[in-house]
C-alpha cells in the first residue's frame, strides 16, 4: 500500500502549518496576547505576494522578502496603535483589541479585493518517485519554513535582542529591572510574529488559491499547534505543525477524511489534560 504518498504530502504541508503557527505562539508566549488578527495577516501575506507578482512581475520568492519587511513594520504599527495600551489590562481587552484589528483588515480587504479567489500562477514542476508525487512549490515552501525556523532560533538564542525577548517572556518585571527596554521588545516581538504570519501566507499562496478569508483556517490550526508544541518555541511550533500535517495526511488513508478534525481536536484536549505546557514547552 502507498501510505508513503499520504505521509510525504502530510509532512510537506506540516512545515507550512508550523511556520504559520510560529508567529501566533511567539506573540502568545512572549506577550500573553492571543492574536485574533493572525488569520487576516496570513491572508495579507498571500495578497502581498499576489499583488507584487501580478502587478510588478516580481518573482513570488523575491516578493516574500518585501512581504517579510512589510509584515514586521505592520506588526509594530498594530502593536503601537491597538495593543500597547491594553497590554497590562485583563486578557479580554487584548483579545477584543486584536479581534477589532481582525475585523478591520477583513472589512477593508473585502471591500478592496472582494472574496474572489486569487491564484499565484507559478509552477516548479513535480517529481514522481514510485507512488509519491511531490510538487516543487511545496518542497520550496517546506525548505523556506525550515530556514525561517532556523533563523528565528538563532535570533532568539544568539542575539542580544533575542535574549531580551526570552527574558521578557520569562519575567517581564525582572527583565525591566535588568534594564531591558520591554516596550520596544514587545513591539519587536509582535512585529516578528506578524512577519512570520505574513511570510507563511506568502508561501501558501504559491500553491493554494486563496481569498481574503483564507487565513482563518490556518489561524485555527495555529491554536492547535500552539498547544501541541508549546508557546514561544519555534522548534516546538514546527514540530507541532509536522504532527498536525502528518495526521491530516495519514488519517484519510485509514478512514474517511471527516474524522480528521475529530482526531485532531481529541488530541488537542488530551494534550491539554496530560501535558498542558505542550510537547516542547518547559514546565511553568
Amino acid at each position, binding site marked *: *500500500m*502507498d501510505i508513503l*504518498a*499520504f505521509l510525504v*504530502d*502530510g509532512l510537506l*504541508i506540516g512545515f507550512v502549518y508550523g511556520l504559520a503557527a510560529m508567529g501566533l505562539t511567539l506573540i502568545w508566549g512572549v506577550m500573553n496576547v492571543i492574536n485574533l488578527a493572525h488569520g487576516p495577516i496570513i491572508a495579507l501575506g498571500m495578497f502581498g505576494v499576489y499583488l507584487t507578482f501580478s502587478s510588478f512581475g516580481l518573482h513570488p520568492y523575491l516578493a516574500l522578502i518585501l512581504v517579510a519587511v512589510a509584515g514586521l513594520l505592520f506588526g509594530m504599527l498594530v502593536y503601537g496603535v491597538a495593543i500597547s495600551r491594553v497590554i497590562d489590562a485583563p486578557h479580554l481587552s487584548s483579545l477584543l483589541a486584536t479581534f477589532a484589528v481582525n475585523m478591520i483588515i477583513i*472589512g477593508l480587504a*473585502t471591500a478592496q479585493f*472582494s*472574496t*474572489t*479567489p486569487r*491564484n499565484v*500562477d507559478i*509552477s516548479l514542476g*513535480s517529481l*514522481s518517485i514510485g*507512488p509519491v*508525487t511531490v*510538487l516543487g512549490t511545496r518542497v520550496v515552501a517546506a525548505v523556506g519554513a525550515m530556514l525561517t525556523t532556523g533563523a528565528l532560533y538563532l535570533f532568539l538564542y544568539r542575539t542580544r535582542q533575542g535574549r531580551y525577548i526570552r527574558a521578557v517572556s520569562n519575567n517581564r518585571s525582572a527583565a525591566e529591572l535588568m534594564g531591558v527596554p520591554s516596550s520596544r521588545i514587545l513591539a519587536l516581538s509582535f512585529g516578528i510574529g506578524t512577519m512570520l504570519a505574513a511570510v507563511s501566507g506568502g508561501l*501558501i499562496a504559491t500553491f*493554494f*488559491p*486563496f*481569498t481574503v*478569508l*483564507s487565513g*482563518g*483556517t490556518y489561524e485555527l490550526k495555529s491554536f492547535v499547534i500552539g498547544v501541541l508544541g508549546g508557546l514561544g518555541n519555534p522548534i516546538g511550533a514546527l514540530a507541532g505543525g509536522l504532527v498536525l500535517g502528518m495526521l*491530516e*495526511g495519514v*488519517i*484519510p*488513508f485509514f478512514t*474517511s*477524511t*471527516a474524522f*480528521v*478534525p475529530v482526531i485532531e481536536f481529541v488530541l488537542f484536549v488530551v494534550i491539554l489534560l496530560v501535558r498542558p505546557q505542550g510537547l516542547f514547552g518547559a514546565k511553568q
Partner: protein
Amino acid sequence: MKKYRSTLFFIFVLFTLLVGACTPAEPATEAVGGDGGGSGVETEETMEEVTVTIGFTASTTGKYNVESTRQINGLRLWMNQVNDAGGITLADGTVVKFTDKFYDDESSTERVQELYTRLATEDKADFLISPYSSGLTDTSAVIAEQYGKVMITTGAASDSTYQKGYTRVFQTYTPASRYLTGALDLLAATDPDVKRIAIVHETDKFSTDVSTALNDYALSLGYEVVLFEGYASETTDFAPFLNKIQESAPDAIMGGGHFQDGSTFAKQLFEKELDVKFVAILVAPPEPTFAELGDAALGIIGPSQWEPLADFNAAAAEAAGMAFYGLSSAEFTAAYEAEYGESPSYHAAGGYIAGLLLQKAIEDAGSVDPDAVKAALDAVDVITFFGHMKFDTSPENHGLQIGHSMVYIQWQNPDALEKQVVWPAEGASAETLFPLP
C-alpha cells in the same frame, strides 16, 4: 472647573449641530441599499400606479460575495429595464413599478433569519427573492412561508427546500437531484466502456444533495462508484483526497462544491498528474475566472444553469410548440455587458429570471395580490432566455423546478482557453474533449 465644563458643553452643542447638519433629511435605515421605504404596495396619486416592493438579502460580504453580487446585478438589470420602460401595464390599466429593499446577509444563516423576518414584517415587502446558496435559501423559505409571502428562489438548487409542504416558494434553478446526472449521460454517450467513477464532494447541503443523487443515478446505470466521500467546505489541501482517488483508480471523477474548493481541486488534480479520463465538477467551471487556472482548466466539465451559447429565443420556442416570454439570450447578454462591463455568468442570469418570472406572474394574474400571483406561478409553463420554466404543483414537491435542464460546458483549446457547450447533444457547440489531456 466651571470653565472646563462650559467648554465641554460648548463642544457637545457644536458636535450635535454638526451631526444634525450632516444627517440626511430622510430617516436613517440600516439597509445597505435599495430605495424602498418599506411601504408595501403604494397607491400613488392617480390610483392607477402601484409600486411593488421586492425584498431580498445579498451577500455583499462573506464567502458568497462573488456569486451573490452577480445574482443581484441580474435582478437589478431586470428591475431597471421594467421601470425604465414605464412599468408593467395590467389588463385593468394599472401600472406596476418595482422598488427593492435589501440588506447584506454576510453569507450567514443567522443574518438571513433575522433579515427576512424584518423584510416580511417591518419593511412589508410584497414579494421576496431568495439569497444566494441553498443553505441560506432554506432558511429564508421558512420565513416566507410563515408570513405568507410569495418567494422566488434563485441561486439555490437543493430539492429538500421544496419537500417541506411549502406552497409559496418557487424554484428557478434545475434542482440538485438533476444537477450532475447529465454528466453521466454525457460520459455514457462518449465512452460506454468507462465504468469506474469516484465522487468527491463538499459536505454542505447543496453539494451533498447533488452527489447523493448522482451516486444513486450512477448505480442505477451500472457504474461502479469506487470512492464516495465528502470534504469540509474550508478544505484547501486536497492532497489526501487525491492520494485516495489514485488508490481507487477511477476512470472519471465527479462532484465538487462551490467556486473556491472546485478551482483548488482542479488545480491540484492537474499538478498531481492523476490518470483520469473525465472530470466534471460543480459550480466552478462555468465561471469565466476559472480560465485563470490555465492548463489546469483544460478539459474540465461543469454543469451550468445557463450559458450565453445556449440560445433560447422565440423561434426555438415556437419550433418546440411552446410559448416564449421575455428577451432572448443574446439580448440579455448584450444588456448585461452594457450595464456591468463583463459577460454574465449563470448567477447573473438567475437573478434576472427571478424578476422576469415575477413579472410574468403579475401580468398573468392581472394583479399584485399575493394569492393571484401564487396561482399564476403555479400555472407557468413557458420558455424564457433561461430555458423552460415550470413548477411542480404536487403537495409533496410544490415549487420544485421541473421544466429547466442543465447545460454542460467544457474548457477547450489549450492555446486560448474557451468554453464550449458539450451537452445536451442538441445544444452542443463542440465535440467533447475526451479523454482528458
